[in-house]
């Protein structure tokens, strides 16, 4: 039963925050009620649960989440968790009450309560989680939500910066904490809090203890604004006061020290712990208090005082003594109470007087006596005046500071630091009260201040009352709860301690007196100076946030850009170079280990073949060298190389490849020529001056090219001269006719054995064709290639110059005779295509070669008579050819599934026809027909799409002319 109540404590706030979303944007009352009831309910729940943990035991509820990773939703409530849960929800309730009056109706109330409730839930989740990872999760959630809460008034620059800084610092710490927790998990083998707490010795003994410790401490210090990560807290004061009252006094900043206390049994007690934690604590204690004295912003003063008080707690925890831990826990509670009340008081003052500047505020006591009194009591508690709760914990602190724990200078410095810090605390507390409520009557306030409404003042009253009661009769009030909390943390090590106000004349008492008197004297002596001080001497120069900004800008902007520029590029050539280099590197092992060549089939030496390749290689090199300035020459030379490649295929018994390569060759040439029309000539004049650097670059590229070439030569030669392994090919040769029904093994592979590849391949072709089409629909020619080509303009002028000859006659006359032959070749090409297609299965050819041949036939007509002429005679719908072809191929493949066979299973048999004889019928042939159709469509689409640009260009020109006319 209790287990579910435990869940409810966390579930409730989150449910409520979801409910808040459903409310209208500007609904103040309902939202307040929702939040109030929720927080109160949480208080009630924890009260209900007190009995089950008061015995010193702990209440657990474990829900498996990711067992294999040791991540489970384990809620665990012991005394310590309980007292914090109560504190969080209690103060939460008071803050709700307060903000009902503080947050104005203009602000987006819904968002405020949404975030507030979510934060409460996360905070409760954090203190109640029994699994370290879960703890980290809630920890990060609090960071994120505090970011949103600080940035609540995001129209102000201060709020944005404060929020950003807070999140950056705390989230960084959170990630460090995660790393630390992971290491702890690695050591312990579990993230379960119980297990971890039980295995303290193992952790402290482990070699990874120090890194783990440092990472966890990073988390704690950033969260609790400990030196040197304290700077974010003062900047977070741009948050609405209720937020500060809640986050920066009782909850968020307490998370760090809570964690330290939580893991105290596991991590504390080693010299590393003592040194690091002690240093940070002491520094924060003194520095925080010192800087607090010089603040002119009301909330700034409180913020620095918070840093100092948290430093005090950290210092106590650093000592590693049980009593220190007791004092620490006790002070956590005390600080929460008086600091929350002070923040709220500050909020009231700001609210009433319209400013938070200590220099402008003064003499408010006559306007708001009650608030004034409350503030005075609270700040007295902050200063550690007897009969107030602050005094008790500070006495304990002094006692611990005096006692020696580990022989080190820290130890000896501790008492002095303690006194100094408290003296400063006294000073700034006095200054806080004096400069606000006393002194000359106010000159110019934005508005006339007066007491706030009772319910706005009520939370302050309640908390101050708590300070008093605890301060006077601690044993009767906080005593038992503190005992439970302490024992739940320290377990067996729980020491004897007394919460009496009066311990007799002891050294700690003396120290308090010194601190009180000294602080008072300091204020008397330096009060006016503090009032006028712009920045604090000595430490005023070191401004955390400025350092922070510089570092962040340097790392997250300048360095990042530098890395991106130095180790990256946006140009193509370097990328290509890297790619080739990577490929070469990949092949290096072969040569490193010495590449051996075999003797397979190496006896043959054919001079004609060698001569052929001399031609081929010369063409290739020449093409490479001409491609820059003589595009047409390069194209022709490329054709030469292609031709030699085809011949090689013929020579080495690959007729299909030869046929296919040939038709592709032809179409590619036409294609590139079509493109060249839109690439204006490059004249050698444009050659960029070849400096030494340029020559070096070329040399580097040349050597890369040579290296790549050599590598390919060596590898291919090595393979060719090795005896082939037993390949899957034998199967294909044996089964091609008997089971595949075709004599041309390659074709049978293409349409049957590996028809699936072909299906994909034609999809690629179709896709590319569609891409080309799409791209050209949006094609915009370069300005220098919009007008007619030079030749046409010249011929045009010739025609006009010649009497009795209409312009453009040359064009017509040019094709006058050739066109006849080109047209009569059309049916021949169709027959050729049909031949290649139908014979494909038994002889070289096949759907692809046939398709390209057919397309070439179409192109021939376009070249002969021009686009317009052809298209009012032939309506080719390439897209339909593509779609139809794909569907045909796919359905032929799918048909076999109707017979229960896998996709693409082919069937063939010989049909006996009268006076025709045996006719082979293979389903693969239909598949090949689909291929044919697609290839025709795709090829025609690509070439004609480019060809159409000329017409579009003309249309564009006419359009412009029309523009000029009217």
């Amino acid at each position: 039963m209790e287990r579910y109540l435990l869940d409810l404590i966390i579930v409730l706030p989150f449910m409520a925050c979801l409910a808040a979303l459903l409310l209208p944007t500007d609904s103040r009352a309902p939202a307040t009620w929702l939040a109030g009831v929720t927080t109160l309910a949480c208080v009630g729940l924890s009260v209900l649960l007190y009995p089950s943990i008061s015995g010193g035991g702990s209440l657990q509820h474990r829900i498996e989440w990711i067992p294999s990773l040791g991540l489970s939703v384990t809620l665990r409530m012991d005394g310590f968790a309980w007292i914090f849960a109560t504190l969080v929800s209690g103060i939460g309730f008071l803050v709700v009450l307060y903000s009902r009056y503080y947050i104005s109706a203009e602000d987006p109330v819904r968002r405020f309560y949404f975030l507030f409730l979510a934060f409460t839930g996360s905070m409760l989740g954090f203190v109640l989680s029994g699994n370290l990872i879960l703890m980290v999760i809630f920890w990060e959630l609090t960071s994120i939500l505090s970011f949103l809460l600080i940035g609540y008034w995001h129209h102000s620059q201060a709020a944005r910066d404060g929020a950003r800084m807070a999140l950056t610092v705390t989230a960084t710490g959170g990630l460090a904490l995660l790393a630390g927790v992971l290491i702890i998990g690695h050591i312990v083998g579990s993230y379960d809090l119980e297990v971890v707490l039980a295995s303290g010795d193992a952790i402290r003994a482990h070699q990874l203890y120090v890194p783990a410790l440092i990472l966890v401490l990073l988390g704690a210090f950033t969260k609790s604004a400990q030196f040197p990560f304290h700077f974010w807290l003062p900047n977070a004061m741009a948050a609405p006061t209720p937020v500060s009252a809640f986050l920066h006094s009782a909850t968020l900043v307490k998370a760090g020290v809570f964690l330290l206390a939580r893991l105290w049994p596991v991590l504390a007690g080693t010299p590393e712990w003592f040194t690091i934690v002690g240093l940070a604590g002491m520094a924060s204690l003194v520095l925080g208090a010192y800087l607090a004295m010089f603040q002119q912003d009301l909330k700034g003063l409180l913020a620095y005082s918070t840093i100092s008080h948290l430093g005090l707690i950290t210092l106590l925890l650093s000592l590693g003594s049980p009593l220190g831990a007791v004092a620490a826990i006790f002070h956590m509670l005390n600080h929460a109470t008086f600091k929350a009340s002070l923040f709220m008081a500050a909020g009231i003052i700001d609210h009433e007087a319209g400013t938070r500047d200590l220099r402008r505020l003064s003499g408010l006591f006559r306007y708001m006596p009650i608030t004034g009194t409350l503030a005075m009591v609270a700040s007295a508690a902050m200063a550690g005046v007897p009969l107030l709760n602050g005094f008790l914990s500070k006495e304990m602190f002094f006692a611990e500071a005096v006692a020696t724990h580990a022989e080190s200078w820290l130890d000896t410095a501790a008492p002095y630091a303690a006194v100094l810090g408290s003296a400063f605390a006294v000073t700034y507390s006095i200054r806080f009260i004096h400069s606000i409520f006393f002194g000359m009557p106010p000159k110019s306030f934005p508005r006339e201040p007066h007491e706030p409404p009772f319910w706005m003042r009520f939370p302050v009253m309640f908390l101050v009352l708590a300070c008093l009661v605890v301060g006077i009769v601690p044993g009767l009030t906080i005593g038992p709860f503190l005992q439970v909390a302490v024992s739940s943390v320290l377990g067996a090590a729980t020491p004897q301690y007394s919460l009496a106000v009066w311990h007799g004349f002891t050294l700690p008492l003396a120290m308090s007196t010194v601190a009180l008197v000294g602080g008072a004297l300091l204020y008397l002596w330096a009060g006016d100076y503090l009032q006028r001080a712009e920045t604090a001497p000595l430490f005023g120069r070191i401004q955390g946030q400025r350092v922070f900004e510089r570092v962040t800008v340097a790392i997250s902007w300048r360095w990042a850009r530098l890395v991106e520029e130095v180790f990256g590029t946006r140009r193509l050539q370097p990328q290509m170079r890297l790619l080739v280099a990577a490929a070469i590197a990949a092949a290096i092992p072969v040569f490193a280990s010495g590449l051996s060549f075999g003797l397979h089939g190496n006896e043959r030496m054919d001079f004609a073949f060698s001569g052929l390749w001399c031609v081929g290689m010369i063409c290739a090199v020449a093409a490479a060298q001409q491609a820059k300035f003589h595009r047409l020459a390069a194209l022709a030379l490329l054709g030469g190389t292609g031709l030699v490649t085809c011949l090689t295929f013929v020579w080495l018994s690959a007729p299909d490849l030869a046929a296919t390569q040939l038709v592709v060759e032809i179409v590619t040439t036409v294609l590139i020529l079509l493109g060249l029309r839109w690439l204006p000539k490059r004249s050698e004049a444009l050659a960029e001056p070849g400096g030494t650097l340029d020559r070096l670059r070329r040399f580097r590229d040349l050597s890369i090219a040579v290296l790549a070439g050599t590598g390919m030569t060596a590898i291919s030669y090595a393979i060719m001269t090795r005896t082939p392994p037993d390949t899957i090919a034998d199967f294909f040769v044996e089964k091609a006719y008997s089971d595949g029904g075709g004599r041309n093994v390659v074709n049978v592979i293409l349409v049957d054995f590996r028809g699936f590849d072909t299906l994909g391949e034609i999809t690629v072709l179709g896709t590319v064709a569609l891409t080309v089409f799409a791209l050209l629909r949006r094609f915009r020619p370069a300005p220098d290639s919009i007008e007619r080509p030079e030749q046409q303009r010249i011929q045009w002028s010739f025609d006009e110059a010649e009497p009795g000859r209409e312009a453009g006659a040359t064009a017509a006359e040019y094709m006058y005779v050739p066109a006849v032959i080109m047209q009569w070749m059309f049916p021949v090409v169709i027959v050729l295509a049909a031949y290649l297609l139908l014979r494909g299965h038994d002889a070289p050819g096949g759907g692809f070669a046939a398709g390209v041949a057919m397309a070439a036939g179409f192109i021939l007509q376009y070249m002969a008579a021009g686009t317009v002429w052809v298209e009012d005679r032939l309506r080719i719908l390439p897209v339909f050819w593509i779609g139809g072809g794909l569907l045909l191929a796919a359905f032929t493949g799918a048909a076999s599934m109707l017979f229960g066979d896998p996709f693409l299973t082919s069937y063939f048999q010989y049909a006996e026809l009268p006076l025709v004889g045996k006719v082979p019928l293979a389903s693969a042939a239909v598949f090949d027909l689909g291929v044919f159709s697609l290839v025709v469509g795709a090829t025609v689409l690509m070439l004609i799409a480019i060809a159409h640009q000329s017409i579009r260009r003309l249309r564009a020109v006419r359009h412009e002319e029309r523009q000029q006319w009217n």
Partner: protein
Amino acid sequence: MELTLALAIGVLTGSGVWLILRPRTYQLVIGLALLSYAVNLFIFSMGRLRVGAAPVLGADGAGNPADYADPVPQALVLTAIVIGFATTALLLVVLLAARGLTGSDHVDGRESH
């Protein structure tokens, strides 16, 4: 024969690589075309070289693998040819579009140095 073809593959690769490291889009196209020749020949050579052993079975259709060149690399090359053709076309059109839109035939759309 093997040596000749190996050298051929090497030279084609070299010229192609040289071209794809050049700054002009047209050089890129020609370079990739040359490279795809080289790669096709490379794939083809992986099946070892045979003269007069085209994998086209006789009338009886009986196939003794020893008598024929390895058909698998040929099939692969065929696919590679098709895809190479398609991609060449695409690259060409893209470079036209780039030429039109950026006004430069530099691969980066603007002159470096």
